[in-house]
């Protein structure tokens, strides 16, 4: 079946593209149903967990300052949301500035590593080694060096996000087929042409997968930075409510962080979708 569809010539291609092709449509629908079912399974499981949590915290008479029930958290969440707005914006700002700095630095480093073999040999192992340093251990140092302002938080975000981004850039450039590079060479293409038409697009394709990972780390990085002190931010808020044993507020902040991370993740997918028009069209 597959093999027959693969044969060239326009006849079977056209047949494939016709909207009335029931087999293709059927498969598409079946896939969509399967995806929806898969998603619902985890939703149902999550709801069951929440119910279990609710039962344990109300029947087991656990004090609210140890473990608030999901219902308490929900009520508090709605109540404190207006107070959280400023903190949320601060954290978001730190995360985004950190990400942007990571992207710029990564891009410059990746281009240098791609064009100068010696540079790559010198830098790449150090980059990988740097990943073994626990960022949480570094964060207090940043506070000592840079105070309680935004800078130490942005630095933590940058350090956390930088690695997946730079690796995705470098891998993207490395992934270019050597035959393709030879083909370009046989055409006497300049380095700039090869970069513009081949290396850069290849790097951007894999860059997005790195960016998506980095985006989910970024909010976490900012919050960790804020835990150590500051004036505003979700992390600062969490520390404050923890000290007053308002764990329901603490959990409300966690919900905000989760939602924020998920929104950023979706945002990247959306940007990716618009940056890569060739991915919009379905394969044959």
């Amino acid at each position: 079946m597959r093999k027959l569809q693969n044969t060239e010539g326009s006849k079977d291609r056209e047949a494939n593209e016709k909207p009335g092709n029931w087999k293709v449509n059927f498969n598409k629908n079946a896939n969509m149903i399967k995806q929806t079912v898969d998603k619902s399974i985890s939703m149902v499981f999550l709801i069951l967990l929440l119910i279990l949590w609710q039962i344990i915290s109300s029947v087991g008479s656990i004090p609210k300052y140890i473990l608030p029930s999901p219902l308490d958290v929900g009520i508090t969440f709605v109540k404190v949301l207006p107070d959280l707005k400023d903190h949320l914006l601060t954290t978001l700002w730190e995360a985004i500035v950190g990400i942007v700095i990571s992207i710029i630095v990564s891009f410059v480093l990746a281009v240098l590593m791609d064009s100068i073999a010696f540079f790559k040999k010198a830098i790449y192992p150090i980059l990988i080694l740097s990943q073994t340093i626990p960022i949480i251990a570094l964060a207090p140092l940043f506070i000592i060096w840079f105070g309680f302002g935004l800078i130490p938080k942005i630095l933590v975000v940058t350090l956390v996000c930088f690695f997946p981004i730079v690796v995705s850039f470098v891998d993207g450039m490395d992934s270019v087929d050597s035959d393709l590079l030879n083909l370009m060479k046989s055409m006497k293409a300049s380095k700039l042409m090869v970069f513009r038409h081949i290396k850069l697009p290849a790097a951007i394709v894999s860059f997005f997968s790195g960016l998506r990972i980095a985006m989910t780390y970024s909010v976490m990085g900012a919050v960790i930075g804020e835990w150590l002190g500051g004036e505003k931010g979700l992390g600062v808020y969490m520390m404050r409510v923890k000290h007053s044993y308002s764990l329901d507020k603490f959990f409300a902040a966690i919900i905000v962080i989760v939602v924020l991370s998920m929104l950023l993740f979706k945002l990247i997918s959306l940007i990716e979708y618009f940056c890569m028009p060739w991915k919009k069209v379905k394969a044959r």
Partner: protein
Amino acid sequence: MNFYPNDDKSSVKLNEDKNSIKLEVKNIKKSFEGILVIENVSLYLKNKEFVTILGLSGSGKSTIFNIISGLMIPDEGEIIIDGEDYTGKTGRVSYMYQKDLLLPWKNIIDNVALPLVIKGINKKDSRKEVEPYFEIFGLKGYEKKYPHQLSGGMRQRAAFLRTYMFSRDIMLLDEPFGGLDAITRSRIHYWLMEVLEKLETSVLFITHDIEEAIFLSNRIYILSDKPAKVIDEIIIDIPRPRTKDVTTSVRFNEFKKHILNIMDRLY
């Protein structure tokens, strides 16, 4: 029966232009890390001629192409194109691989126009220049599609057009249809036969498929196993354009038998 270049009678009829030599490979030698891969290869390609280099895998065919295209420098010998020395110089002939090497992020028209963009022509003008060829190459309607939307055969057609856009007089094709299934492959042979009739191009072709070589070629060089040298040269005098029926003709099968006999002696 005579399979061999019978220089006087057959070539006298051809006109001056047709007889002129486009490309000449003169006594090239090449070793890699002390291992001799190309022992001594000389061959030529005339104007509008389709010449095949037939040899076993690993015999050094691609290395010969790398040398002709200027990607590699031979240890000895030279490459002469239109009477000029092009040894080790890239940017003169066009080169096509078994992989289509189309860029997934460009649509077909921009992929095909890439060689012109590399030569410094702006995007708009290069698109305009390649557009008329889509009709001739049977790619009409595929201009705005992306490579992954095309079948393997159509992708190779697009890759062939891109190759043609870089150099329209000399094309090197390195097993361009090796990755296609049998049915698609014979269809693309008929297609290529038709397209070549409309173009003024000389083709040097690599394959290890004997039938493909006979069907497409004016002339075939048979290469020895590594280290490579030319062990035979055969003129395929079946009139062109050739159609499907040729492959079942007596003459075709005589050539096939003859070449099989020569190849058998390689072991």
